[in-house]
């Protein structure tokens, strides 16, 4: 664990990609094999199943530290991270011990089978053997969420450097459902791809936001334009007589969407589609809010299946007749996609995402303006000769989103952020006018600079009217322009509406509170775009 803690510390102390890569490369060359494998697993989002609730962890940590639980709870938001709070609050380890990362992971995995009392004993004992940084990592193993500034790309590069395997090939091998328990370092890094994982997806190709004028992209004939859908991006994989569905977050979500169970009847094995999963009814997409309840559910109740049936609007073909065709030009992949999907029955739940047939930029721009009518977020522009690359490489694929909707609103509650933003007030609740009163309608966390958050934090402290735990009610005075992508009806919110991707577009220092927007204004947006 000391090796791994040292690696973590090195990664944490630099923002330079080159230094991070070399720290990782060194670790991948020198650490014990099982530790290397686990490091790859952890940095690619694989982790032991959570066996202890965070509530229990808090209680045990407070007890071990000899402080009341409420004091732990007060400290947590100030530190901003649970694993770190525990690591800091515990007394120094009584008996530091250097065991390998893999061994500690064994401890974490073993927790699941233990009786409650033994579980507690095992965790307390581990804390007693670990230095603060190791403890922090150990806690992260239990609580999950190993986000420590290591992008997939960076890790892939370091792995490629450490092993000599080509970077793109390495990226592919890191995909899929392998686990450190069923894979060896050699299997993962051998010269020949040794994977037998039929479900393995390809790394997703990502688009960049188009900030320049579309006309700067040159001849529109070089570009294919599609709607940018607001659903779940996924890869549908047909291999070996069965199908698998992966989300963009690399989660295997096959069982959540039984609609695709029949795809092997319609599509040949050796087919991989990239597309958008949308709740779909009567020839058009339903609001994202109706897809949402299906995302979290491992099994889908019948009612939900009838209310919000899904389908995939496929926009790319990555594997055809068992061959990886990602290097072919998009126009060719698209032609094969269309012929593959043509004539599929309605209940196949897969259809090609239509291409737009406008041939000049002004016409495309006009079409884009109508995106909201289709519950689309705008257009995708993809170069007709582009390969399907792994990750984000600027230039080939652009998202040309609609300008967001916006309203001016006043901040009424503020709460401190987490992690890097702990101790800063960054999480705000906003209200619009409703008659003579104010009605809260959304929260937002992002969009301002660090300097602005700093200034607002100082303001919040001076203008707190009341505290509700970590939440402060502030004088309704600061006005912000809230931008958002969509607006929907919502029974869960007092205002009756819910926004999609709300954020602070601007701090309107120029605008007095009595000039903010009204609930009626929001309702008319709802009527127009909901």
């Amino acid at each position, binding site marked *: 664990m000391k090796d791994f803690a040292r690696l973590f510390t090195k990664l944490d102390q630099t923002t330079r990609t080159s230094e991070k890569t070399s720290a990782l490369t060194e670790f991948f060359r020198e650490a014990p094999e099982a530790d290397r494998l686990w490091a790859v697993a952890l940095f690619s989002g694989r982790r032991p199943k959570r066996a202890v609730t965070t509530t229990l962890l808090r209680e045990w940590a407070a007890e071990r530290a000899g402080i009341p639980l409420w004091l732990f709870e007060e*400290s947590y938001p100030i530190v901003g991270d649970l694993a770190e709070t525990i690591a800091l609050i515990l007394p120094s380890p009584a008996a530091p011990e250097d065991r390998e990362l893999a061994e500690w992971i064994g401890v974490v995995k073993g927790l699941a089978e233990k009786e409650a009392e033994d579980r507690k004993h095992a965790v307390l004992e581990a804390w007693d053997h670990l230095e603060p940084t190791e403890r922090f990592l150990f806690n992260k193993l239990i609580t999950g969420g190993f986000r420590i500034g290591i992008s997939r790309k960076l890790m892939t590069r370091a792995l490629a450097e450490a092993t000599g395997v080509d970077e793109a090939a390495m990226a592919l091998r890191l995909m899929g459902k392998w686990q450190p328990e069923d894979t060896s370092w050699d299997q993962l890094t051998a010269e020949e791809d040794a994977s037998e994982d039929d479900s393995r997806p390809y790394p997703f190709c990502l688009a960049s936001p188009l900030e320049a004028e579309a006309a700067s992209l040159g001849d529109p004939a070089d570009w294919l334009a599609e709607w940018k859908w607001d659903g779940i991006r996924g890869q549908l994989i047909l291999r070996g007589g069965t199908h698998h569905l992966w989300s963009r977050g690399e989660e295997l979500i096959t069982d959540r969407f039984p609609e695709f169970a029949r795809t092997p009847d319609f599509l040949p094995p050796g087919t991989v589609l990239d597309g958008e999963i949308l709740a779909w009814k009567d020839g058009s997409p339903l609001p994202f809010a109706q897809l949402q309840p299906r995302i979290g559910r491992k099994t889908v109740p019948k009612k939900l299946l009838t209310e919000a049936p899904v389908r995939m609007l496929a926009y790319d073909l990555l594997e055809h007749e068992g061959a990886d065709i990602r290097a072919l030009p998009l126009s060719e992949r698209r032609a094969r996609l269309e012929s593959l999907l043509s004539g599929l029955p309605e209940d196949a739940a897969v259809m090609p995402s239509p291409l737009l047939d406008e041939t000049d930029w002004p016409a495309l721009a006009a079409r884009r303006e109508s995106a909201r009518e289709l519950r689309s977020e705008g257009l995708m522009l993809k170069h007709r000769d582009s390969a399907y690359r792994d990750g984000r490489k600027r230039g080939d694929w652009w998202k040309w989103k609609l300008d967001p909707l916006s309203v001016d609103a006043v901040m009424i509650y503020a709460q401190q952020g987490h992690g*890097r933003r702990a101790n800063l007030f960054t999480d705000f609740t906003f209200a619009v006018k409703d008659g003579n009163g104010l009605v809260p309608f959304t929260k937002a966390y992002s969009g301002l600079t660090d300097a602005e958050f700093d200034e607002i934090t100082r303001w919040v*402290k001076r203008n707190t009217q009341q505290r509700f735990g970590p939440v402060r009610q502030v004088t309704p005075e600061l006005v912000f322009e809230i931008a958002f992508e969509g607006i929907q009806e919502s029974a869960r919110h007092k205002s009756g509406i819910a926004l999609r991707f709300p954020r602070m577009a601007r701090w309107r220092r120029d605008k007095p509170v009595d000039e903010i927007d009204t609930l009626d204004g929001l309702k008319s947006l709802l009527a127009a775009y909901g």
Partner: protein
Amino acid sequence: MADPVLSFTERGIYCPAADVYIDPWRPVPRALITHAHSDHARPGHGAYLATPVTAAMICHRLGVEVETQPYGEPRRIGGATISFHPAGHVPGSAQVRVEVGGEVWVVSGDYKLENDGLSEPFEPVRCHAFITECTFGLPVFRWQPQAEIAAEINAWWRANREAGRASLLGAYSLGKAQRLISMLDPEIGPILTHGAVEGSNAVLREIGAFDRETVPVTPDYDRKAHPAPMVIAPPSAFGTSWARKFGPAQTGFASGWMRLRGVRRRRGVQRGFVISDHADWPALLRAIKDTGAENIYPTHGYVDIFAQYLRSEGYAATPVPTEFGGDEDATEQSGDAA
């Protein structure tokens, strides 16, 4: 009922019997100053009283005249007896003991218990009521011994030197800077100082409170003459053209706040060294216990949480709002003295 020994006013802590304020934040006729940091020693008061070292620093910073009063010597002011006692925060820093009619109150100012080898070590003072800072009044704040941090800083410096890089270490110019300099191993290389730090160095040297040699960074500074140095500067000097004259460099910051990863990341420094001139959680609790006081007034820091904890431990604890530490992280936000 008689006036309390000390009361909390909008200008600061006030002693009616002596008609003086302690570290007031608005101009007052007579002020007792615990130490020379700018949030405690403000300009504009009619008269100042402080320890000799603090007086020298205030004089340097504010250009005002300061009457001095050595540690431990009682002075009668009006109906009160007042004395200064070492607070261990920075050289010259004091707790203020105020006795009126047999009742003793102590204002801690800022303090730490660990002997830093530079400041006069903290002395516990028995009292009935203790007004204590609690900048780091949460159980997550615990410091390592100074020697361990010194080893970390020197190892960092050495590694940077081997890589041909300067080490830019950010620290508050009075107190923390001199403490860090005294922790550095002069064998490793040259120690350079920013003008703000050197100003404090000079004052403290003159009165015999500091004896380390440093090289002030002057406008005609020549990088080749001092390769891969240690540079001690206020953090505000980072990211400016001044900081670029040292060539390739690593930045570090020395503060109790560096204990928190979120703060380290927000500060964007490469290395955080957890070292503070304020008491950590165990030290706060010990200091309070050692006063024997039953009435505790936490101020400047996580006052509400800290007071609640003290009450659960059987003290009568009342949080006191202040303008220099109006809230838990005021010090961290303004970014220096901790």
